[in-house]
C-alpha cells in the first residue's frame, strides 16, 4: 500500500499480480520490517526493565531481578540503536525517495532549501506556512538524507496541495513524538548500559525511577510510528494508485460506521481496563518459581475406538 509493485493494470476489473518476485522483493519491505520488529523488541525490554526497576526500588525479589534486568537493558540498548540506525534511517530515506511530499510534511519542512535543518521542536502553522517556536539543527536534514550538508530538500510548498497528506499537523506530531521518544530510548538505555557495566545499576535509584516511569513510552512511540505511516500515506489508500476517498464502502452509511466505531471503542476500553487490572495483579503478585496452574485433570489412555 505504501509502495505498490509487481502489479499490472487490466483493461477491465481489478489489477492483476504480474511478478511475484518483484512483490516479494519490494524495497519497502526490509526497512519497515526491521523498524517494526525492533519497535516490538524495545517495547518488550522496557516492560521487563520497568518491572525490574519497580521491584528493585521496592527492595523485593532481588535475586530474580538480578537475572532479568540486565538482559532487558542490554537487549533494549541494542534494539533502540538498531531501530534508529539502520532501520529508521533507511526507512526515512525510502519515504524521501518514494513519498517526498510525505517526507516534507512529517519533517515540518515547508519551503525548498539547500542545506535544510532538522526540526526538533516547533508547531506547524499551515496558514502562514511556517513553523512557530522552532528548535532546529541547521543543515542536519540535508546531511541525514543525502550525506551532503548543502543538498537540496523539497519543501511542502513545492508540491500541489491535493497531494499533501490530509492532516499535516497530526503527521508532523506523530512523527516527532516517535522520533523524540526513540532518541530518549537510546539515551536512557545507554545510561543503563554504563551503570550496568560499572556494576552500579542497583544503586542508581534515579535511573531506576526513570526506567520504571518509562513503561508507557514504547507503546506511545509504536502507536505514533503507526500513525506516521498511515497519515503519511494519505490522501492515498494505495499510494499513487487509489485515493482513500475512492476506497470506502459507499453503501455503509455514516450512522452504521459510527455504531461499529462506538462498539469497538467500548470493547477496547473494556479490554484496556481488564488488561491494566490483570497486569497490575500479576506484577503485584511477583514472580512464582514453581509453574502456575496446578493441573487437576489427568489423561487416561483411550481404550475404545
Amino acid at each position, binding site marked *: 500500500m505504501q509502495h505498490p509493485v509487481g502489479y499490472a493494470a487490466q483493461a477491465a476489473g*481489478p489489477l492483476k499480480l504480474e511478478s511475484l518476485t518483484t512483490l516479494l522483493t519490494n524495497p519497502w519491505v526490509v526497512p519497515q520490517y526491521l523498524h517494526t520488529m525492533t519497535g516490538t523488541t524495545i517495547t518488550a525490554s522496557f516492560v521487563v526493565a520497568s518491572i525490574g526497576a519497580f521491584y528493585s526500588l521496592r527492595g523485593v525479589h532481588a535475586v530474580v531481578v538480578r537475572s532479568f534486568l540486565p538482559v532487558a537493558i542490554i537487549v533494549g540498548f541494542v534494539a533502540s540503536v538498531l531501530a534508529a540506525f539502520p532501520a529508521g534511517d533507511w526507512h526515512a530515506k525510502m519515504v524521501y525517495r518514494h513519498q517526498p511530499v510525505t517526507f516534507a510534511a512529517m519533517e515540518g519542512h515547508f519551503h525548498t532549501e539547500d542545506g535544510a535543518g532538522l526540526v526538533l521542536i516547533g508547531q506547524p502553522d499551515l496558514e502562514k506556512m511556517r513553523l512557530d517556536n522552532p528548535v532546529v539543527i541547521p543543515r542536519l536534514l540535508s546531511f541525514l538524507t543525502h550525506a551532503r550538508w548543502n543538498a537540496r530538500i523539497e519543501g511542502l510548498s513545492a508540491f500541489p496541495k491535493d497531494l499533501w497528506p490530509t492532516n499535516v499537523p497530526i503527521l508532523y506530531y506523530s512523527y516527532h513524538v516517535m522520533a523524540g521518544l526513540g532518541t530518549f530510548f537510546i539515551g536512557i538505555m545507554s545510561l543503563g548500559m554504563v551503570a550496568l557495566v560499572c556494576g552500579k545499576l542497583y544503586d542508581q535509584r534515579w535511573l531506576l525511577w526513570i526506567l520504571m516511569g518509562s513503561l508507557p513510552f514504547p507503546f506511545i512511540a509504536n502507536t505514533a510510528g503507526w500513525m506516521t505511516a498511515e497519515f503519511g500515506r494519505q490522501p492515498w489508500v494505495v499510494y499513487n494508485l487509489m485515493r482513500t476517498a475512492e476506497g470506502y*464502502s459507499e453503501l455503509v452509511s455514516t450512522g452504521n460506521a459510527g455504531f*461499529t466505531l462506538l462498539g469497538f471503542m467500548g470493547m477496547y476500553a473494556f*479490554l484496556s481496563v481488564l488488561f491494566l487490572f490483570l497486569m497490575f495483579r500479576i506484577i503485584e503478585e511477583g514472580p512464582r518459581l514453581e509453574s502456575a496452574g496446578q493441573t487437576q*485433570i*489427568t489423561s*487416561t489412555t*483411550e481404550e*475404545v475406538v
Partner: protein
Amino acid sequence: METLWFWLIGFMLATYVVLDGFDLGVGVLHLFVARTEEERELVLRTIGPVWDGNEVWLLASGGAIVLAFPTLYAISFSGFYLPLMMVLWLLMGRALGVEMHHYIRERLWDQFWNVIFAVSSFMLALFLGVALGNVIRGVPLSAEGKFFLPLWTDFQVGKQTGILDWYTILVGLAAVAALAYHAALWLHWRTDSEVRRRITKIIPILFVLVLVLWIGTIAASISVQPLLTQNFHARPWGAVFPIASFLAIFVSFSLHRRHMAGPAFLTSALSLYAMICSAAAGFYPYVLPASNPQHGLTIYRAASASESMTLALLWWIPGMVLVGIYTYFVYGKILPTRLSLPHEEH
C-alpha cells in the same frame, strides 16, 4: 480455474465449520453438561489446544476469497458490514471467555467468563447459519452489483429483507443444533467422567432437533430460492450431497449407540461437509445470488485474473501441506488420551 477455486474455498469454509464447529458447540453446551468448575475446566481442556487454530480456517477462507474472487470480497464485506463486525466482536468474546479463566481463581470471575463464552459461542454458531442462509436466499444486489443489508426489517423474505428474516433465522437455528450435536459427539469421545453421562442423555434430543430443523431448512430453502430447483434439474447428481448428509448423520447416531465415539464424531463431520456441499452445489455457479436473478454474482464475474489464480494455487498447495502436517501433529498429540477428573478415574 474459477470452478476449482469455488470448490477449494467451499472446502476451506466447510473445514472451518467442521473444526471450529465442535468448539463452538462446546461453548453452547458447556453450561448444561458441566456442573462444577472442575468439570468446566475439563470441558474447556478438550478444545484448549485446538480452538484458535480452528478459527484460522475462517481467516484463511477470507484470504482465499480476496485472492480468487476480489469482487465478491468487495461486495459482500461492504454489504454484510454489520454482521461481520458483530462476528468479530463475538470472536473476541469467545477468545476472552476461554483465556481469562486462568488469571483469577474466583467463582464470580469464572461464572462471568463462562457466560460470555457460552453466549458468544451460541451467537456465533447462529450467525454462521444466518450467513449461509443469506447467501442461499440471495441479497438485493443493485444493477451496479452493490448492496447493503440492515440487521433486520420485518423478518419477511421480501424486497425489503434484512440479514435476519424467518428463513435465515431458521438456518441459523439449524446450524446451532448441528454444531451442538457435533460437539456433543466430540465431548462424548474426548471426556471420561460424569460429564460424559450427561452428554449421553442429551445426544438423542440434539439428534432429533437436527433432523427436524435440517428437513425444515431444506424445505424452506427450496421455496425461498428457485435457483436450487433449477440447479437440481440441470445437475441431478447434486442431490447426492443432501442424501449423503442425511445418511451420515443417521450413521453417526447409530455408531454413537454402539459406543463407537470416535467414528461417530467423524461421520458427523462428514455430514457437515455434505451439508455445505449441498448448499454450494445448490447455488453454483453463483457465489452471491441476488433477489433479482439477473444481478446475481457468478464466479466468472467475481474472479480475479487467471494468472493470479494460477499463482495463488501454487502457494495454496504447499500451504495446505503445512497445515496438514500441523493438524496431524496437534491432533495426534491430543487424541490418544481421554480427559477425566482424578477422583473419577476408572
